[in-house]
């Protein structure tokens, strides 16, 4: 088996798989190294499936808007897998005046970037989604947002990239990146040393220790979050939901089950021993939150709960960047819990960055060297 390719991608999540697919489409030979036994085992298969523009930082908003316009609508057809893309809007809900203020601020910023998003009141909210309780008094409404299935999207990119000849190796954790004559060249794993002229590190929070082997640091920490899913319920609503507090989010999937994420407030103090395990208080707390928003779901049965780690960046915005001081090295990580919706756009633009030296969307605001001390 050849250990050489044009590009090595470290990380078989949706970012790595999508980039591999778009590179392979350009005729570039790619090897993807995945540390675990499963493709898409990290945040790619543990997130809530939001494909939204509203509520995003203005630095990543152009990527989100471009992806929703150009890639998501045709993705199922392109990958030959139903990614269940549903574009029926996003409601970001609020209950208090403080929430209203947060939502108004986010809305004003997004409108300035040209996004169709506006504030609506309780009656308008319940006209869109009659199941929401009277406690909900305000929301931002973005009709072009939506949701998709993270599992089939991640594995769909994998399947299609593999068909195009991308080599995927599992249980191949990267111990070390090595430079030769100042430029990136080797990726060291327990079983083999792989070589390429270009290397993309897209390994979630593990990217930090990998990048450290060539003296590069991305300031991010793993942060555990928990999700749960109900049994299939009759179709109720199609919007993606979030809250001003970012304490609860979710949607009803095509299958009928509701996927919800939430927090108990103890996530940053989590005792996980290296495995993202659901805590005993997490699912219960989220259930109480959901019932307050959706009294009708009080009898819905929870069939599964899980946890995952965000790669939470210092400024909660991803790092998508070439590394000039290590020629040939590229980074796409630190997505901070909102990478899934922009993943196709990231894959497309990073493939352009690697193969052509420039990308359709200007990514300079997401550079790796943007972090400065406070004085």
């Amino acid at each position: 088996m050849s250990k050489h390719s044009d590009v090595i991608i470290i990380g078989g999540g949706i970012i790595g798989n999508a980039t591999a697919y778009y590179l392979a489409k350009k005729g570039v030979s790619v090897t993807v190294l995945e540390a675990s036994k499963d493709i898409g085992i990290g945040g790619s298969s543990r997130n809530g499936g939001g494909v939204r523009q509203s509520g995003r930082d203005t630095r990543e908003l152009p990527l989100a808007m471009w992806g929703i316009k150009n890639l998501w609508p045709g993705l199922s057809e392109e990958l030959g897998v139903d990614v269940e893309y549903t574009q029926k809007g996003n409601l970001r809900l609020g209950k208090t005046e403080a929430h209203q203020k947060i939502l108004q601020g986010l809305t004003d910023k997004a409108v300035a970037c040209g996004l169709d998003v506006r504030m609506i009141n309780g009656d308008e909210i319940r006209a869109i989604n009659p199941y929401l309780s009277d406690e909900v008094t305000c929301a931002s409404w973005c009709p072009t947002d939506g949701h998709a299935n993270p599992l089939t999207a991640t594995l769909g990119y994998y399947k299609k990239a593999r068909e195009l000849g991308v080599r995927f190796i599992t249980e191949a954790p990267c111990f070390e990146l090595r430079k030769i004559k100042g430029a990136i060249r080797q990726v060291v794993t327990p079983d083999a040393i792989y070589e390429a002229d270009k290397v993309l590190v897209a390994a979630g929070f593990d990217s930090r220790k990998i990048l450290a082997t060539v003296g590069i640091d991305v300031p991010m920490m793993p942060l555990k979050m928990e999700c749960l899913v109900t049994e299939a319920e009759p179709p109720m609503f199609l919007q993606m939901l979030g809250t001003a507090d970012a304490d609860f989010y979710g949607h009803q999937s095509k299958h009928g089950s509701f996927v919800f994420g939430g927090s108990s407030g103890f996530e940053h103090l989590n005792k996980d021993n290296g495995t993202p395990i659901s805590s005993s208080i997490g699912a219960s707390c989220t259930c109480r939150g959901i019932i307050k928003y959706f009294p009708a779901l009080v009898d819905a049965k929870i069939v599964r709960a899980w946890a995952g780690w965000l790669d939470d960046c210092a400024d909660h915005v991803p790092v998508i960047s070439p590394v000039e001081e290590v020629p040939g090295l590229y980074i796409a990580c630190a997505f901070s819990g909102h990478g899934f919706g922009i993943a196709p756009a990231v894959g497309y633009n990073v493939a352009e960055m690697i193969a052509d030296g420039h990308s359709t969307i200007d990514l300079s605001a997401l550079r790796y060297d943007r972090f400065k001390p406070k004085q």
Partner: protein
Amino acid sequence: MKSINDRSRNIGSFVSQLDDTIIICRCEEITKGEIRQAIHDGMFTVNEIRRYLRAGMGLCQGQTCGKLVKYLIARELGVIPDQLDPATSRSPMRPVEMKVLGNEEVTHV
């Protein structure tokens, strides 16, 4: 490197079998043929099959079909089943209503 980790290894082309219409995952009604096809699409682990097809994601959470799926993958890849991990088990072990799961007293002082 274990051969199972090379996702480009040649496992031959998909050949349909007479009993491909048998349902393996009863909760989500996934057939043997669908699972075998998914293996040829590159899904080499029980977790991947689960996420790709929903086999083992229904009410029983794979407690019925988990082993069958594992054996199908092993046979298709030509490895012994012991080389494959079972799907990750998740709480709760039985479906629980939200009002029950969320029913604990939280007193904020």
